[in-house]
């Protein structure tokens, strides 16, 4: 029974590479051996394994799936180079400009929030001039307003920077994916 099963399976696997065939057959030999050790009959084992035809079909479909996977060929390497060149140009022309514009804007935001935060301290140093003035309360309000606005702007800038950072990473990942061609 084992022999019948094995020879049928072998016949069905004819068109696969020799090494592949032997590998597969070995698995089933081992299966028979283990089953026999457990006291099963060859008949029982063969029946629960199923049709050799069905197994061969399965093996071949898996084999084809594996073969269809992209193996880097001259063609795909050429494509990758083409995509890379195209991406470099596209990035140089369309992405670099806005990228630095946004980065600059963010830097500006940080700078102005820093100025807003520092302004009250400057005011504090010239306090002796201000304290005598009739509208010294205005000065205090200006300091508080500036401090509050500065804190808000720092928080806002941090959030914006984080978004920008994430977007940049995503875009870089997208570039890599395009080149890999997946």
């Amino acid at each position: 029974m084992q022999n019948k099963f094995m020879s049928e399976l072998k016949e069905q696997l004819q068109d696969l590479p020799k090494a592949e065939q032997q590998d597969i057959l070995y698995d089933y030999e081992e299966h028979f051996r283990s089953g026999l050790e457990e006291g099963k009959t060859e008949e029982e084992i063969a029946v629960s394994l199923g049709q050799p035809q069905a197994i061969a079909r399965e093996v071949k479909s898996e084999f084809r799936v594996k073969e269809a996977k992209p193996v880097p060929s001259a063609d795909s390497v050429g494509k990758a180079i083409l995509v890379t060149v195209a991406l470099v140009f596209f990035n140089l022309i369309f992405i670099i400009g806005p990228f630095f514009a946004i980065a600059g804007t963010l830097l500006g935001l940080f700078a102005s929030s820093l100025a807003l935060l520092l302004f009250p301290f400057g005011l504090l140093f010239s306090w002796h001039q201000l304290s005598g003035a009739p509208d010294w309360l205005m000065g205090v309000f200006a300091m508080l307003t500036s401090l509050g606005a500065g804190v808000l702007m720092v928080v806002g800038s941090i959030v914006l920077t984080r978004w920008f950072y994430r977007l940049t990473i995503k875009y870089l990942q997208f570039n890599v994916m395009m080149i890999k061609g997946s």
Partner: protein
Amino acid sequence: MNAQFKKGILELCVLVLTAKGDKYGYELVQMISEKFFIAEGTVYPLLRRLTKEGYFSTYLKESTGGPPRKYYTLTEEGRAYMESLVCEWNTFYEGVNLIVKEGLGDHAE
């Protein structure tokens, strides 16, 4: 049961069964067929594919008084893949159960 569906479940089973320790083919087949009916022969092609895809690595180890057996080890990649499959399965399982319960439940309406 739909063949494609069963294939996916078998894949999940062999991955999970090797999560806590290496197993050889026959062992895996027995552990599954104890629980539900399968054509046992289809497990080996599946193991081959998962090995080719890098989810398993294999080695041969002597069995007591017999030729060596092929053992399957879950790779790092295989573990991550298994975890994603288990997660998918849980959502699926809960969803179907809910549908069955709602469809057949005898709550008064």
